[in-house]
């Protein structure tokens, strides 16, 4: 009959080499109770048992390999990033572009204001030259229709007059 330690040692070796699947549930339970009672054994076991079971380690490595992108995928991803960068950059330059448009618009507006001020301030010549009215009229004789009345009416301050005939029928 083997000693419990020998059975324990076998169980430990089996756990280290093949994982806990190598033990029966009863053995696992008993091993766990022993390790609880023997902290020194637990420490030794910790030194000897790999952090990850081999099978688990293989499974994890395989999963990682599957999840890692391939080289071509990495290239395509970087290409997409590089293509997206100018668009992003353009989007971020909208503000300065709008400001650049405002400069010529402001210049045009300023020119219009100046032109309007010049037009308003510049005295414009009359559309037709003013009439030169006689200012030194000398009447030698004046006859009107029977019943009508002539008037000499001053217009303006220059001495100009109009001969106005007030008709009797008016």
């Amino acid at each position: 009959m083997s000693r419990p330690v020998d059975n324990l040692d076998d169980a430990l070796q089996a756990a280290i080499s093949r994982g806990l699947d190598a033990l029966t549930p009863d053995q696992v339970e008993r091993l766990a109770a022993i390790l609880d009672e023997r902290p020194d054994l637990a420490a030794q076991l910790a030194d000897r048992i790999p952090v990850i079971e081999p099978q688990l380690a293989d499974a994890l490595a395989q999963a990682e390999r599957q999840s890692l992108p391939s080289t071509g995928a990495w290239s395509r991803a970087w290409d997409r990033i590089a293509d997206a960068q100018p668009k992003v950059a353009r989007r971020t330059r909208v503000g300065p572009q709008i400001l650049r448009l405002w400069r010529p618009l402001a210049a045009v507006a300023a020119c219009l204001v100046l032109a309007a001020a010049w037009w308003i301030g510049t005295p414009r010549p009359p559309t037709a030259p003013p009439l030169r009215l006689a200012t030194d009229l000398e009447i030698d004789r004046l006859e009107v229709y029977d019943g009508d009345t002539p008037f000499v009416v001053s217009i303006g301050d220059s001495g100009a007059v109009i001969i106005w005939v007030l008709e009797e029928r008016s």
Partner: protein
Amino acid sequence: MPRPVHVVSLALALMLSGVAGAADEPKDNRKPVDVDIWVIRASTKSKDISPELKSFADKLKQRFKYTGFRLERKIKETVDLGKTLTTSLTGGYQALVTPKAREKDKGAERLALQLQVLKEKEKKPRMNIEYKLEAGAFQPFGAWDLEGGDVLIILLSAK
């Protein structure tokens, strides 16, 4: 015989002096006269003023009730001194313009004119005036009835 020769010589001398005197008269005084007549319709129903009449209309509006002044036509003719220009105005009215003489007064040229305004089918003129004024200046005359309550005004210049 000496006496008849003296008479003939004297007569000849007088004739020659008369011709010389006539030759000394300025030729400008005989040159034809350019007559300019503007026919205007003045109205109380309109406020439209022809551009050429703007300054004139502003003066008339201060004196009379008319608010609209439309230049209906301009008449330009050249007339010899002593001859009469006859022209239609508007609304059945006619103008007879006779330049009488040219004068110089203090260096400025003046013209003596006669103006008659007649209505068709009437024998006597509505106005007959003889006057003098500075050459090239416009003299206004008015106002004769037109249809619709409007009146006729004319501006006359000669030079």
